[in-house]
């Protein structure tokens, strides 16, 4: 069956989109094989995005934990402040190649929206970004950034007014304007070919990190850690190491704790279902209605997970755990104080797990954490969580 990872994935979408998905799949496969496209992607990744991003040895954090060495892959230093730009650039170029003039995107934390807006400005494409009004409130600076970059931000009030609802609206727009419009989906989820395509555009993270690690330490890391919202920064890191003897952990949003029901830890309940065009693990009630989620980080606050992760979970190639809001906030402060880096709250979930793990590992082992983005966008949230306003 098309686009499956084990039993997960597929194309559960309205018929109106089926031809567009086939067209996208063809265009992506052709572009993949086309040197001109690849060269353009590599060139703009270097000169627009600022790749390669550094691999940074967090010596003070390592000392603080007293165990394994902790390295950070600095996607926070990529243009627009997160790994999201890698995929936005790839899909933007693809949309242009397909002759589409209009881009719709969804955004949770605002990072994918900002990345899409920047790429559209650079390529001269019209850009509409759907964003839940709750997320607009939480991520106000990013809303303004998108506007400055020429994008139109459309607030979504439906449902929980967060990422899930923004995706619903973006898909409805796409169903209506599919002839002129490309849907620039921001994570490794949705119908085929998105999970594969987004992974391929994000795989640069893992390829760089692997080479950088070999150059620095002359060996591979023992453990990879990345946060999992839809699953794009994590799959981008993990993919290059899939055949290596390297352990991997994906960190979901534990919110207020699993028992509270207010979280986005899809693997903690592991119920398969269909959301946004793909068969995967979905947080849902006994009647198959998709549940509201909670996380301090808007980018992890999503009830489904990319289908490749569902398969990696079943096959136990990747272990999945979660960090609570409090653990992520603590990790945010620790990284700030010890390393002079403000991580995105999403990335802080991965840092929280790294702190736990590194402590239990011998000093000659290595943990590689993907720092998926920077925390400037989260200052408001961190301030109110710290009771400073």
């Amino acid at each position: 069956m098309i686009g499956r990872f084990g039993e997960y994935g597929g194309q559960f979408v309205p018929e109106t989109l089926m031809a567009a998905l086939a067209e996208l799949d063809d265009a992506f496969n052709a572009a993949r094989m086309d040197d001109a496209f690849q060269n353009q992607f590599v060139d703009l990744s270097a000169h627009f995005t600022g790749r390669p991003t550094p691999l940074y040895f967090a010596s003070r954090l390592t000392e603080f934990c007293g165990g394994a060495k902790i390295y950070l892959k600095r996607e926070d230093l990529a243009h627009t402040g997160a790994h999201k730009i890698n995929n936005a650039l790839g899909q933007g170029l693809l949309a242009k190649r397909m002759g589409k003039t209009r881009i719709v995107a969804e955004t949770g934390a605002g990072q994918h929206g900002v990345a899409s807006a920047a790429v559209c400005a650079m390529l001269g494409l019209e850009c509409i970004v759907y964003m839940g009004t709750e997320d607009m409130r939480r991520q106000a600076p990013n809303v303004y950034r998108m506007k400055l970059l020429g994008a139109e931000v459309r607030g979504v009030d439906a449902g929980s007014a967060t990422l899930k609802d923004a995706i619903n609206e973006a898909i409805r727009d796409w169903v209506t304007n599919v002839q002129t419009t490309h849907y620039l989906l921001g994570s490794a989820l949705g119908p085929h070919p998105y999970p594969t395509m987004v992974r391929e555009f994000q795989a640069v993270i893992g390829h760089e990190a692997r080479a950088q690690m070999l150059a620095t330490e002359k060996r591979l890391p023992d453990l990879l850690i990345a946060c999992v919202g839809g699953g794009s920064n994590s799959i981008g890191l993990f993919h290059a190491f899939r055949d290596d003897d390297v352990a991997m952990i994906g960190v979901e949003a534990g919110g207020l704790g699993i028992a509270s029901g207010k979280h986005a830890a899809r693997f903690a309940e592991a119920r398969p279902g269909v959301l946004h065009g793909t068969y995967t693990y979905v947080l849902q009630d006994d009647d198959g209605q998709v549940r509201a989620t909670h996380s301090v980080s808007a980018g992890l606050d999503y009830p489904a997970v990319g289908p490749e992760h569902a398969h990696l979970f079943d096959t136990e190639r990747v272990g999945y755990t979660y960090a609570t809001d409090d653990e992520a906030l603590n990790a945010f402060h620790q990284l700030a104080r010890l390393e002079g880096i403000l991580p995105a709250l999403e990335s802080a979930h991965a840092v929280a797990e790294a702190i736990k793990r590194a402590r239990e590992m011998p000093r000659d082992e290595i943990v590689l954490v993907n720092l998926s983005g920077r925390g400037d966008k989260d200052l408001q949230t961190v301030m109110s969580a710290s009771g400073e306003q």
Partner: protein
Amino acid sequence: MNRIEEKFVELGTQQRAALMPYLPLGYPTVEESQDLIRVIADAGADMIELGVPFSDPLADGPVIQHATQVALKNGVTLAKCLAMARAARDAGVTIPLILMGYANPILRYGIAAFARDAQNAGVDGLIVPDLPPEEAGAFDAATRAHDLALIFLAAPTSTPERLQKIAAATRGFVYLVSVVGVTGARAQLAADLSSFVARVRAITSKPVCVGFGIANAESARQVAQIADGVIVGSALVNKIGNGNAIQAAREFIAELRGAINHKIE
């Protein structure tokens, strides 16, 4: 023969198109929508599509989205929808009843259990707007085992190859989506609707029914001249959402029925 097939045979002898309203179950209230099934049948509907609410209805515009959100707040589940179909049968409704709902609640219920329970509830068919034929294997097997018609949608963007596949896979009829877009009443019919219907007719002898966007009696009359069935959703939802749902539905269905109650030329 399934009730849907029987109905099209009957309509064929009368040379008349089917009037097929879409009714979101649980809207505006559970009690009213239970009564509306019978009222709509009595007012002249030939079949009814019973909408099963879902939290994330991707193929729906604002009107149906809103109605199904209200239905969820009213506590409607797939199991309750089946019970409502059963109650309508017990209240004497004999026309075909078709459930229309998204894949996830059916998967959660269990496809085989759903098909069995739907048949027992007197349901005749199933439409799943986010289920293309490529993904329908388990749905197809289970619905066949319980004499339910699994009805697929065709869109203006469907390629000729896809139309072939859809026409071959669908049972009962082909559900032709008249617009590139989501559900919602449109002021006018799509300009190329008749050529779209003709393209589908050229590859199948199955009945062809048109839905999405039909706003009023005049549009319904025009569609009835080229198609075997006319599906009216958002326009009906608009009428029943403005108070006095029973009377509004009775009048609107009668008006639609009047507009398509002539023989196909």
